[in-house]
């Protein structure tokens, strides 16, 4: 099968590599920024496009990967579905539940496979935590806390910095944890959120959420794009018979260069694994297309995650809890 990458930023490049690792051919790379498109295209000896529709409608393309800014996902999902292509869409699935619903309808109508990359479900540490919870190691879970984030992503002109497009750390980053909490502990009941979404003098976002699940479990989730540097994930799950903790700062490998070209150095923790979580989600996606099983995350799950993130931002605006 042949793959088209729509949106050749960091995630587009990463997914192109994962697709190639799965034995697929990357044949088309589209980006409004010509240089970005040709850079990824050159790596894979693919054709570069400025117009995404050209890549999507290219006859030799079987799978369309959508790694564009969130509000454009619906448009490209619909176009890919109409062209009969299978779809790998980066998370968040859409900027609103309504967008997601229309995208799902288009894929259903066309009979194509639509996958959304909620990759945290594939991270080894999160898989391991879910297994411990499911095995009852800590008894009945009562509370969990997930902390995720670091520096504000993207350069000064990046779409991430436009809250209308990205939704800030709550919508773009914490959506991983909202999804994982629901994946592991079932449906949410209500959500409360405080978030900064500051622009000036320094752009920073910091989001603090409490989500009550229908089974009574309380999830406290903190997302930060407010740190001067770095990236960190911490998780803690408490139950009636114990507790599980994870901290990415507790890494098996770390390095700090003595000199860098720009500015101060930073200790970078690393956690090498044989198969990356991105590779794993791609393998499930490809297996699904080939009729060998179903992925652990559905488009409906991804829509529900958007619904939760939307509810969080609504709560932040109202300063009251929102039923979800």
């Amino acid at each position, binding site marked *: 099968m042949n793959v088209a990458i729509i949106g050749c930023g960091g995630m587009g490049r990463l997914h192109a590599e994962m697709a190639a690792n799965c034995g697929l051919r990357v044949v088309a790379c589209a980006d409004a920024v010509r240089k970005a498109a040709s850079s990824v295209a050159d790596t894979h000896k693919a054709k570069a496009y400025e117009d995404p529709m050209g890549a999507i409608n290219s006859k030799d393309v079987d799978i369309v990967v959508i790694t564009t800014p969130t509000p454009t996902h619906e448009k490209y999902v619909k176009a890919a579905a109409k062209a009969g292509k299978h779809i790998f869409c980066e998370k968040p699935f859409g900027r609103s539940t309504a967008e997601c619903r229309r995208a799902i309808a288009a894929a259903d109508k066309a009979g194509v496979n639509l996958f959304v990359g909620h990759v945290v479900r594939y991270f080894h540490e999160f898989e391991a935590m879910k297994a411990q919870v499911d095995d009852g190691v800590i008894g009945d879970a*009562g*509370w969990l806390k997930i902390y995720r984030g670091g520096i504000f992503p993207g350069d000064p002109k990046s779409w991430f910095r436009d809250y209308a497009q990205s939704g800030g750390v709550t919508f773009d980053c914490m959506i991983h944890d909202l999804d994982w909490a629901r994946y592991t502990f079932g449906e949410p009941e209500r959500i*409360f959120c405080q978030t900064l979404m500051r622009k000036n003098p320094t752009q920073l976002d910091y989001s603090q959420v*409490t989500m009550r699940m229908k089974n009574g479990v*309380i999830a406290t989730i903190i997302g930060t794009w*407010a740190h001067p540097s770095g990236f960190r994930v911490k998780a803690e799950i408490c*139950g009636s018979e114990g507790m599980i903790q994870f901290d990415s700062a507790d890494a098996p490998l770390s390095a700090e260069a003595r000199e860098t070209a720009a500015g101060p150095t930073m200790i970078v923790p690393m956690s090498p694994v044989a198969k990356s979580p991105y590779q794993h989600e791609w393998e499930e996606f490809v297996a699904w297309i080939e009729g060998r099983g179903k992925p652990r995350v559905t488009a409906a799950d991804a829509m529900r995650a958007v619904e939760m993130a939307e509810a969080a931002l609504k709560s932040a605006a109202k300063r009251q809890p929102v039923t979800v």
Partner: protein
Amino acid sequence: MTKIGIMSFAHMHAHSYAACLNAMPGVELAAIWDDDVRRGKKMARAFETSFVKDLEAFLDTEMEGVIVTAENVKHRVLVESAADAGLWILCEKPLAPTVEDAAAMVTTCKKAGIGLGTAFPCRYARPLMAVKEMLDSGAYGEVYAVSCTNHGQSPGGWFADEALSGGGATMDHTVHVADLLRWMLGKEFTRVYCELGNQLHKDTLETDDLGSMHLEMEGGVQVSHIASWSRPKSFYTWGDVTMEFICEGGVINTDAFNQKLTVFDDKAMRVSWAPWGDNPDLGLVQDFVSAVRDKREPAVTGVDGLRATEVTVAAYDAYKERKAVKI
């Protein structure tokens, strides 16, 4: 010689306060009163002082101040009786489980001209004092958001009996952080939302064992705080106080009691943390003793205790109403 008495050893912090008094030159633990006679006698032996069974006789003992470490609901009556006797008072936190009680205690002591302090020793924890200095220096600029925890193990006993404690983990573990933030930022709390949990110890506890709170302070500072009895019995230590400050000029993180050794003990088959930092209780008790000598208010006042109780009570109200409420 400054003579100080202790009223009740129901709260385990009394042990530390008694040890602090005994360690201070020019200070004498004058007497112990306890409504649990056996406990009172045992503690009097342990801390080499006398046990006085009768409350009036205790209050007539030659001394200038008392530390009240009874169950939460008993604070008011004991504080008021000590105030009547003209004694300076350091009251264990929470000052009281209700705003009505806490306010009455403040009023009574004010009218009697008595210095009333609330036992918030975290203000004397060196890492937390350093945070306040960093914030006060202005180097980090305006504080926009703070994420906090005050976790503990389940203390059991009267703490879990609402009739004596007035509430569970949220009653127990909200006031320290509420007081720290008021002190560090010089702002009052204006609003709170709270989810209460009771799934961690549901077979043994009637009360909440966790509160996940979202608060606002004057100027719109966004605060989350977890008050809990969530640390397992097998955990390294009693719990923690952690705070992450998101400021214009950067981020400040504190894990206030993270001055410790990790000890692997094969005999007990246990891994635990052995603290080596300065004892915050000593600073608290030293300030109280000097307040007694100078006949001034303790640095952490009864009003500070009242404000922290207002936050806690509002958190319980918010959960009852399932909405954010004003403080």
